[in-house]
């Protein structure tokens, strides 16, 4: 088994409609039932982020995201799947359920 991150690409935060949230719940239940579920969550807006640099003694805190971009990660799933074809199918269902584009990436050597 390998672990994959499914990132939800969005240009707004907490923008899911009621129907979308319901579809996501159905998808999450399915992930748990089939043994793919590890973790999932939504992220607050990028402007709530703080970039922290603790490399040189006293840490420096900077308000805002490290990357300014039109689209960002609005939420994510971490799933487990035997290989990419299964993960792709789950990512496709995830994209459908939340009605957003998603990015699928494997974890390193998991």
């Amino acid at each position: 088994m390998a672990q994959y991150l499914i990132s939800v690409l969005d240009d707004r935060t907490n923008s899911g409609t009621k129907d979308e949230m319901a579809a996501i719940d159905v998808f999450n239940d399915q992930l748990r039932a089939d043994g793919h579920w590890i973790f999932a969550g939504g992220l607050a807006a990028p402007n709530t982020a703080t970039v922290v640099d603790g490399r040189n003694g006293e840490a420096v805190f900077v308000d805002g995201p490290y990357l300014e971009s039109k689209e960002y990660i609005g939420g994510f799933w971490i799933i487990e799947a035997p290989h990419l074809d299964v993960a792709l199918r789950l990512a496709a269902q995830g994209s459908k359920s939340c009605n957003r584009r998603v990015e699928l990436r494997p974890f390193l050597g998991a």
Partner: protein
Amino acid sequence: MTDLSEVITRVHREEWARVVATLARRFGDLDIAEDMAAEAFATVVERWPVDGIPPRPGAWLTTIAHRKAIDRVRREARREEKHKEALMLFDNPEPLGVIDDDRLRLIFTCCHPALAMEVRVALTLRMVGGLTVPEIARAFLVQEATMGRRITRAKAKIKAARIPYGVPLREDIPARVTGVLAVLYLIFNEGYLASDPEKEAVRSDLTDEAIRLTRLVRALMPADGEVAGLLALMLLTEARRAARMSASGELVTLGEQDRGAWDRELIAEGHALVRARLASGEAPGRYQILAAINAVHTDARDIHDTDWVQVVALYDQLGRLDPSPLVRLNRAIAVAELDGPQVALAEVDGLPLEAYHAFHATRADLLRRLRRSEESRAAYDRAIGLAGNAAVRAYLVRRRDQLAGS
């Protein structure tokens, strides 16, 4: 000694993909599969001159490569994990059962939709076709190092993302097969008109392998029109191979080919496929239309007997699916036969194909027929400069030198 090196070259062609595919299945790792296949072939060069050629070279190679792979896996620290991975990493949990062909599994792995199209072709040429990285780099007109990096990155993605080594599940096949067909067609074309000026102009190992793999895909999805179309297209093209090269290694164009040298059996099979597709009544895709065009050509007694009205009509149909300048160029060649070179030239001029030798070769021929020798000569020169294939170049040089006033 020459005989032996010929045998080794032939065995390399015939057995490379099989050895790589077998090792990929056993070890689930394309790098190990490729490296150990290469090492096994290196051993051939040491051993065969001394021991003689073994009765079953393929089995001999696979055994040697397998042993070397086991040694390598043992040498590596994470031995047990590696063994475990070897068993599970790429294995598709629900094998198809219909066709158990290692090379077909390999091609579906190399042609996975998670890889970029150009990478799929390059990887398939490397792993299935056994082409070297410099050969592939030349075919793509990129630097060797660039192509090497692309292939390395693709293998890393296969490993990290766990792209399965296998034919996809039946429900996924229709979505996957388009990419596989595109790659098979590119391999066929690379074999039919090799792009490397230093190698033979025709590489039948590649055309044979492309046809063989397309047959396997067809067995996998017998009802798919485009699979049948691509197979028909390859067969009807391959049928003309013997007539396509002169004794001196020069390209012989369709109009000048000895049609008696065409392979009637392949033509009959290709025609049967095209007829079955027409009878299906379904709207044809790109490969089916290209096959139909080739069916018209192979139906004619000679170039003048060709039903050019139908060829142009088929290109019109193709142009609606694929309005690319390449289709318009080929349509114009048929138009020249129907409406004359003046009309065809008007259609060719201005096509954005400046970097393509066939564009200049077509212009050169049309200008020649219009007796505009100076312009024709210039166009031949451009075409010769761009043609990678030695047989094509030899043909173009002769045509140029035959121009009036030479």
